[in-house]
């Protein structure tokens, strides 16, 4: 019987349809035929398994680094293949047998009966994440089944049929298959042709009415043809192309750190049915740009928590809403055996915490200065708005310090006098003023403490706090509100980027770290993220409104007070949330594949930093005009920023992402100018 190679899937399907008319039995090879692998080398799946076993061994008090585990596995598998070769023409191995022996050699007397199941589940899970069903071929298989053909899957692999059935079940076509035959069960493989004899005997198949489809010219082409079975072999040029690329990305990443992240992203690329057209540009941007950055951010936090023994993690609202979801996707996959911290979502905001931060310490000069960082805050009314103060009882004290409620205290406004700012500082030093502030804020402080008690915040010696950035104001206010307590935990804050525009009051019990960018580390590329702070805030933002404060009800329980969404700003925020929904979906889909890719390649956040730097520079500092058009947010609500417009704001410089598409197109050097300007700023810091 002749057999033929086909170099594209459509050509194979045409020939297959013709040949199948005369064949009641159709068999398929599994790997690289019905299921394709994301990675070029199937043996790479063994590496995370080796790391997993090494970690299991460490838990059992056995020191065995992952490369030693891999060596033992290879040796045992080789021995098994040699032994099989003495009895059969094929040198086959069976996973449960050789893995059982591998574990015995590693764990010795400490081997637990459940260990093999645990390792098998992990390896199959890893395989599943790297396998993608080939849609066209499976659709054809289903068609054949409908026509009443008998469908078989034959595979030469070390996994027994039971394991292959599990992989096929997840791929979604197990019900179409009459039986799965693996060489691991019978040690009779397709490579020698015995596998076909075995299947024929077992299922009563006649070679004359049998069509086999596979990818190996010998096992799936020559051998069945020798047995009188019709055979079609697929040598897909597109698959060769894809695998040549991933192979080079992975190989280059061994020598050049830059390519590590790119290899991860190449592995993340959706294939076959996953790669459907019609994705919105926002989804694509979320998947290709924000997912690796946020995935690495969460991975970095998990690494730090494990290193520092932090076992409680709080995600600050509202950006923490998406970050917590990302954590739930990334952390268990990348750190499968680690004792990860318990996570929860904490309802906080600068506006809600500002008042509570004054309940015990009063209003400090630094906290008051933070109010006047945004250009929209003008005078003492803005201070009252942010710290939830009633201005009326303070009028006389203001007057005593030659100030009024509407005296400009921000240099951007007409009428601002430096002397007035000094008077304001004098007011802050006035004990009577501070007493009034403490009195007004006491209820807010009490309610906050009650809320944190409900959330078990004080039940831990140290907690990790996660926020998007930038000054760490929320953590600053939070710590100010609770630092008087004897049971205050040590607070380790993790920010996507720490700009430290106002110096953070770092102590042993209260500190922040920027994961992707921290001003305390000179990082030119990482600072590009500062161009798109609002983009990250909007992309990660929860769909619920911002928190305005806490209130104790009659039963002493803390109630959360959310901002009313009926005003124009609230409605605009809902519009913005809907607009960025595809981006959030893209991020969540992307981080799932990011986690699998990182798990396979075994990279840490530090390993990926050169590529993340490239992503930040290329996408944020040198964005394409089309990206700015497509990705820029429509509305950005920030109650902390006041509603005033600076009178001396004529000189206010637009940020790169605020320029119109026309301006960006007309000025080819605009991006470079901004980048040079940012270099100057970094050097001055």
């Amino acid at each position, binding site marked *: 019987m002749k057999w033929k190679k086909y170099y594209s899937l459509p050509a194979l399907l045409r020939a297959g349809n013709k040949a199948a008319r005369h064949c009641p039995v159709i068999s398929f090879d599994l790997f690289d035929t019905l299921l394709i692998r994301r990675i070029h080398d199937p043996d790479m799946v063994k590496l995370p398994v080796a790391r997993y076993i090494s970690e299991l061994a460490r838990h059992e008090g056995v020191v065995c680094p992952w490369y030693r585990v891999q060596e033992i596995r290879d040796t045992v598998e080789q021995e098994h293949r040699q032994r099989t070769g003495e009895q059969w023409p094929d040198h086959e191995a069976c996973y449960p047998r050789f893995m059982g022996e591998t574990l015995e050699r590693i764990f010795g007397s400490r081997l637990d009966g459940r260990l093999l199941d645990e390792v098998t589940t992990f390896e199959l899970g890893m395989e599943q994440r790297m396998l993608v069903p080939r849609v066209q071929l499976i659709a054809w298989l289903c068609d054949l089944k409908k026509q009443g053909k008998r469908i078989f899957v034959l595979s030469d692999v070390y996994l027994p049929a039971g394991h292959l059935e599990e992989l096929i079940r997840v791929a979604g076509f197990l019900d179409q298959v009459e039986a799965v035959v693996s060489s691991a069960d019978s040690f009779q493989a397709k490579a020698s042709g015995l596998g076909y004899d075995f299947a024929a005997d077992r299922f009563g198949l006649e070679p004359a009415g049998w069509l086999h489809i596979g990818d190996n010219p010998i096992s799936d082409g020559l051998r069945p043809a020798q047995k009188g079975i019709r055979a079609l072999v697929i040598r897909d040029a597109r698959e060769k192309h894809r695998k040549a690329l991933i192979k080079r990305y992975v190989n280059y990443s061994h020598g050049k750190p*830059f390519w590590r992240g790119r290899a991860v992203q190449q592995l993340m690329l959706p294939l076959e049915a996953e790669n459907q057209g019609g994705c919105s540009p926002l989804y694509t941007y979320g998947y*290709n740009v924000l997912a690796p950055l946020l995935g690495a951010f969460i991975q970095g936090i998990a690494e730090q928590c494990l290193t520092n023994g932090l076992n409680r993690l709080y995600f600050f609202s509202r950006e923490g809403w998406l970050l917590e979801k990302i954590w739930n996707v990334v952390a268990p996959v990348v750190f499968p055996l680690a004792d990860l911290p318990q996570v929860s979502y904490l309802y906080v905001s600068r506006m809600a915490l500002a008042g509570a931060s004054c309940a015990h310490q009063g209003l400090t000069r630094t906290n008051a200065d933070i109010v006047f960082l945004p250009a929209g805050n003008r005078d003492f009314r803005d201070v009252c708005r942010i710290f939830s103060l009633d201005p009326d009882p303070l009028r006389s004290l203001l007057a005593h310090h030659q100030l009024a409620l509407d005296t400009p205290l921000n240099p951007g406004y007409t009428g601002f006098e430096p002397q007035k700012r000094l008077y304001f500082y004098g007011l802050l030093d006035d004990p009577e003023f501070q007493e009034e502030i403490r009195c007004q804020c006491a209820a807010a402080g009490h309610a906050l403490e009650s809320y944190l008690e409900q959330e078990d915040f004080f039940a831990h010696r140290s907690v990790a706090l996660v926020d998007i950035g930038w000054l760490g104001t929320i953590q600053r206010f939070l710590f100010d509100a609770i630092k008087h307590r004897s049971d205050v935990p040590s607070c380790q804050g993790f920010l996507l980027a720490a700009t430290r525009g106002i110096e953070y009051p770092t102590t042993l019990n209260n500190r922040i770290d920027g994961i992707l960018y921290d001003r305390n580390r000179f990082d030119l590329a990482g600072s590009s993220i500062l161009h798109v702070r609002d983009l990250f805030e909007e992309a990660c933002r929860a769909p619920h409104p911002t928190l305005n404060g806490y209130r104790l009800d009659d039963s002493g329980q803390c109630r959360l007070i959310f901002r009313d969404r009926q005003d124009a700003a609230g409605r605009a925020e809902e519009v913005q949330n809907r607009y960025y929904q595809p981006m959030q979906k893209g991020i969540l889909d992307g981080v799932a594949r990011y986690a699998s890719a990182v798990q396979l390649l075994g990279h840490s956040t530090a390993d990926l930093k050169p590529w993340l730097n490239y992503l930040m520079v290329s996408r944020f500092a040198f964005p394409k005009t089309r990206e700015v058009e497509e990705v820029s947010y429509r509305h950005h609500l920030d109650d902390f920023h006041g509603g005033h417009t600076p009178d001396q704001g004529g000189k206010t410089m637009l940020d790169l992402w605020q320029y119109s598409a026309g301006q960006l197109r007309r000025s080819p050097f605009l991006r470079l100018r901004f980048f040079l300007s940012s270099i100057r700023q970094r050097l001055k810091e």
Partner: protein
Amino acid sequence: MPDNVLTEQKFDMGRGESGRIMRLAALNKIVPMGNFGGGPGFRCLLVLFVLHHGSLLFRLLIVHEDRLTMLYQRLRKNVAHVVRTRRGQS
């Protein structure tokens, strides 16, 4: 909205990432851009750029895959032999 796919025909991410890396790597030679871990390297960039844009090459050469593999293995064997000989001499 344009019809976007995440993996394009060239198996590149987004829109022409390999070209974008090349442009930024070239600019990085003039303006310091930060830590790119030693950068992408000219040879790697060139090979990947050709590979991404070389789908036609794969379609043409796959027919001769067996002969090309034999040729490649023979070349590799010869090169390895030359390297071993030179090492032996030195």
